[in-house]
């Protein structure tokens, strides 16, 4: 079981905000999902290696050569706010 406080803490880590009602609904659903995935605990995995990625071979690396990249104007086109050729952020220090 998870408590509302747990859900609130996870939301903070995930940078998400929930209203009071959303939090109630979510805690309930979240408990059900955790109960469902909880069946994994019954399986004995002592001594089993984890599989992060299926590719067995070493990943092929390319040569480190300078290649053309996207022009700055193109990259900044999708930014919600930009100034002097940089992404613009609110002040983070007083």
């Amino acid at each position, binding site marked *: 079981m*998870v408590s509302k406080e747990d*859900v609130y803490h*996870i*939301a903070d*880590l*995930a*940078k*998400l*905000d*929930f209203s009071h009602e959303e939090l109630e609904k*979510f805690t309930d*659903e*979240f408990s*059900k*999902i*955790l109960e*469902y*995935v*909880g*069946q*994994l*605990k019954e*399986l004995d*995995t002592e001594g*089993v*290696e*984890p*599989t*992060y*990625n*299926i*590719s067995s*071979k070493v*990943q*092929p*690396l*390319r040569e480190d050569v300078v290649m053309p990249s*996207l022009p700055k104007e*193109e*990259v900044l*086109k*999708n*930014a*919600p*706010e930009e100034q002097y050729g940089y*992404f613009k*952020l*609110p002040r*983070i220090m007083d």
Partner: protein
Amino acid sequence: MDITSLSAVEMRDKLLSGEISCREIVKAHIDNIEKMEPEINAFITLTKEEALERADRIDEKIRNKEEVGLLAGIPVAVKDNISTKGVRTTCASKMLENYIPPYDATVVERIIEEDGIIIGKTNMDEFAMGSSTETSYFGPTRNPIDTTRVPGGSSGGSAAAVRAKEAAIALGTDTGGSIREPASFCGVVGIKPTYGLVSRYGVVPMANSLDQVGSFGRNVSDAALLLQAIAGHDPKDSTSMDLDVVDYLAHIEDGIKGMKIGVPKEYMEIEIDKSLKDKILDAINILKDLGAELVEVSLPNLKYALPDYYIISTSELSSNLSRFDGIRYGYRTENYSSLDELYKKSRSEAFGEEVKRRIMLGTYSLSKGHADEYYKKALKIRTLIKNDFDKAFEKADVLVGPTTPTLPFKIGEITDPVTMYKSDSFTVAINLAGVCALSMPCGYVDGFPVGLQMIGDRFKEINILKAAYALEKNLGGVR
């Protein structure tokens, strides 16, 4: 002649023989899109003008007797989580409603190099999270077979577009069944290639270790043709393998005499409607009659695949989606007074309910105190599932089973998240093991298609294509 009813292979042949022009092909599809879209909603963005311009260039190439590519003149629909330069790519989310990529995904580059005509960007579950295309910010796609029902998901727009003849072939992505389940629900063929066969560069990631781009077609050859065009190593994706790609179409008709086909007994133990199961068993008998040898195989840890998938996929996606911070691209909230508030409000206002639910589950699984219990445990179980498949492929060339536990359900019918997740009961294990699979229609129940899933070992796409092609020929035109 109704051009849109031709197969992709036929369209290309008739184009090269001079019987029809590329402009005629594209125009016929645009006319059909205009007729169907108000009801189906398979597309988020259409690229009609660009498609007609490209068609004229292909026609000119043919007039000048220049060599043309594998997909010459064929209208292709592209799922909206695959980057297209200058054409907005939304992932069906408010977060990327106005995002216009400054570059093409490698798979899109390949389609263009092979002279395919991109006709539009298709609807999907938001950020590919769902099994019904109902979580799209742009409204649900409707199943062309019965518009009160879902087309499956997350690549529901691509499957519906191909079924409704709005495009001849389409690209989708499959993280846990997102190509195969909609292919099953719409009665078309959908291929999820081996992890590492197709480049993921420029594809908005959901779960990096599971995602793979694949193809849809109204028959096995058409889907194989598109796979041929996109398969192969890409230096921009270090997980794409540097292997020689097999010429699928040259070998697809080789037949299946002596091929070993396994029916994992655990596949038949998962809850499924009996009428669907009967169709699957009929298809297996046809394969046997065609000369395949049936062998017994077992995937003992299959029942853990679905919960295992949900831990691993949500862990990866919660980390992936942290890139959407309202700063570099995507939605930014209007009112904020601190950086933390900017992050939280932008994300909360722009992500839909299912996306938030999965980010939360993933964050929980990775968080301090729970990572060993959930994430690490899930990775170990993934090893057991992978080993099960490795053992099965020591005995069999192809595994067969159902694609989905049910026929297409009604729009709005499933509201409980766990019930929705169970739509993927038969498909997620394939992604965890990184092997290849396809879904093809093997018959109809109450007017709805039943999807048969064929699973092949890593980079053995040719085996499932041969078996699917042989079965399709002998089902006598199920469509």
